[in-house]
């Protein structure tokens, strides 16, 4: 009875479009987690096991997730954490501290943030600590469970890990890795970074305490997989309120992905970068053209979106210059060639164009 009801719900077209926008915008703009990891199953399993061992068995671990920008490092970590949170034991025990290299630019600030996220401000109070290590040890000590048998496991997530390596003496990193190597308290340190050479940035004493475990997110997608991913990203999920509309939409998307001009566009984007972020930018531009008047995405949308993504910004700006300004730029280019990269000033440029007209410009 209820099944038939669901099949027959028909929303007006305006409502449908609003729903489509809502769902797809959440996917592209808000970085919603996909239900299942695509293409990174091995890394997902690896990270999952590691964190489970830390959370459940009290093992200390450290790992670095390395991958170019937009490859899905944060997405991977968040989906692993979401899966972990479903286990009740982990939920009870595991504490999480999220630090970001862009925000916590100093070790002192980082320590305050750790104190705050562990909710230990009252415990610390107005104490003055001799060193960073003392402070950290005190914090971890304060996390011991009621029967004082063992400490609760703490997960430290360090976003923009390479920026932490630029702090003075790398004290935070040294202490975190030190704690993870010694038997003080079960800590898991997960660093996310976009630099492949991140280990070169670490000092010798920090590097030796690191477990040298790295998870690489280098994409090995092929073009068919890429276009499949595009299709999946544009499709509506099964629980869309108006099932008929969702079916029509998904069918339209499938035909679109097989269209020749769209495939050319996708090939061009695939050749320049394979990551999620640039894909989301392209799809967002296509989505913005969907409205009640035009309820589907067409091939022309794709072409337009691709054109604006790949537009040459400098050529666009050159287009808006007046003739006089263009003359100045040509003279500057000429002077640049003549003087082989040495500096020149406005007087020389004006001299170069003196033959044409005599305008005074500031």
């Amino acid at each position: 009875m209820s099944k038939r009801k669901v099949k027959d719900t028909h929303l007006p077209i305006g409502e449908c479009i609003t729903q489509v926008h809502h769902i797809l915008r959440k996917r592209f703009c808000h970085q919603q987690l996909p239900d299942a990891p695509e293409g990174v199953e091995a890394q997902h399993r690896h990270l999952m096991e590691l964190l489970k061992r830390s959370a459940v068995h009290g093992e200390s671990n450290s790992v670095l997730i390395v991958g170019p920008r937009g490859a899905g490092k944060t997405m991977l970590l968040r989906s692993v954490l979401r899966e972990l949170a479903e286990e009740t034991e982990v939920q009870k025990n595991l504490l999480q501290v999220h630090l970001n290299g862009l925000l916590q630019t100093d070790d002192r600030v980082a320590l305050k943030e750790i104190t705050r996220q562990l909710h230990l401000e009252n415990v610390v109070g107005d104490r003055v600590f001799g060193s960073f290590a003392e402070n950290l040890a005190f914090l971890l000590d304060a996390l011991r469970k009621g029967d004082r048998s063992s400490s609760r496991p703490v997960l430290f997530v360090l976003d923009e890990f390479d920026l932490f390596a630029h702090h003075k003496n790398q004290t935070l990193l040294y202490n975190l890795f030190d704690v993870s190597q010694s038997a003080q308290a079960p800590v898991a340190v997960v660093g996310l970074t976009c630099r492949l050479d991140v280990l070169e940035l670490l000092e010798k004493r920090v590097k030796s305490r690191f477990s040298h475990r790295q998870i690489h997110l280098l994409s090995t997608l092929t073009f068919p997989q890429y276009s499949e991913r595009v299709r999946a990203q544009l499709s509506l999920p099964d629980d869309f309120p108006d099932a008929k509309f969702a079916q029509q939409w998904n069918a339209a998307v499938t035909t679109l992905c097989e269209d020749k001009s769209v495939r050319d566009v996708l090939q061009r984007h695939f050749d320049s970068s394979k990551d999620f972020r640039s894909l989301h930018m392209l799809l967002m531009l296509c989505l913005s053209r969907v409205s009640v008047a035009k309820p589907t995405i067409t091939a022309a949308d794709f072409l337009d979106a691709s054109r604006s993504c790949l537009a040459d910004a400098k050529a666009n700006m050159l287009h808006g210059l007046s003739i006089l300004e263009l003359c100045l730029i040509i003279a500057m280019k000429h002077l640049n060639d003549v003087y082989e990269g040495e500096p020149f000033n406005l007087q020389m440029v004006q001299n170069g164009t003196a033959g044409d007209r005599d305008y005074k410009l500031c």
Partner: protein
Amino acid sequence: MAGRLEHPGYDEEKLRIVSEQLPCREVQAGALLSLMGQPQQYCYPSLFIYGHRASGKSHVVNTLMKELELPHATVSCVECISAALLFEQVLLAFFGCDAASLLPRSPSLSDFVRIYRQQASQSPAEQTRYIVLEKAELLRDADANLLPALLRLQELVSIFLYSEIVWDKFRPNTGCFEPLLLHFPDYSKGELQQILSKDRHPSYSAEFYSSYVHILLGVFYAVCRDLRELRHLAALNFSKFCEPVAAGKAKETDAHKLWKNIEPHLKKAMQTVYLREVSSLQWEQMEEHDAGALRGLSAHTHVELPYYSKFLLIAAYLASYNPARTDKRFFVKHHGKIKKTNFLKKNEKTSNHLLGPKPFPLDRLLAIFYSVVDSRVAPTASIFSQRDMSVKFVLITCVNICFPLQIPEFKVAVFLFLCRFVLFTSFAL
């Protein structure tokens, strides 16, 4: 010709008001609106708008925000010499002065994000909030972490940056969260005509004004496409254009007569397009008193100087533009031959005049002065005071701050024609 802005989720009446205020920018406004989506939907975390000066970037964004009453914070990066000012303004605009007062003395980005998150969880918004940053190129000179962090600040906030410089110049070395790029193209000639015709004078007809604008554009379009500058020029020159009509000598439709009247005037105005040497009020006053030559500040060559100051000025000019090694040749009676070294041969191409005046120390100035002045002059206090006066009148400028042990250095601050003028007038005797 003008398309209507339409979007579900926004009031139609308000959209109509917006499209009236944004002539010739419907395409861009429509694109922006469709990217923003409905107020309760997510918008792309960061958007970068680029285009030339006066291409309507801030006008479009501000009009959209104000008329559609979206929660936004507009901050001009020119005002934010430190990041703390930026944080304060954003918190003030969204959450009021209580939140802004929660910021500690010299807040770091970490404090700002923490307080923002706290406040956002206390007063959750169903609508996307927008932070609009003007002149975003100044963010590059702030702390290195400010720009990348702002681009990542998602959580129901969308950042709109706009600037005249392209995004390629903004990217930090390890990359960042790339914003969506939106280009505001320059206005075409027809669009400029349409916009300029809008501020017509009430006592004249619209066709008269648009023919005036047509003439103006024909003269100035090759030189200047900046809308602000063109509006200034139109305002300045309109009274001259209407003179024959006001005096009764010609009718509004006498295009040829009006053109003949205005043409020499516009030619003179071309000399000082961007300079704004005179404000519009001064211009009108000048037109009343001095119906003839156009004199800006650069036309003042008449300078009266005391006797020794003239020699000081000439000595300063010589000291600035001749390299120190030629002093011996010019100012000493018996000089030897100067061999041309390799260095001299290489740099012969660049004339010294192109490179600008070079700084020289005070004792060199005095040495040249004593050799230039005919009669024997004692180094009295009057000479030094005249030198001070010259500095005050910006004929020569002091280049380094005078520490007790260092000799002050100077540069000459006037052009050749002024020095020649001084030279010829003072030696006419």
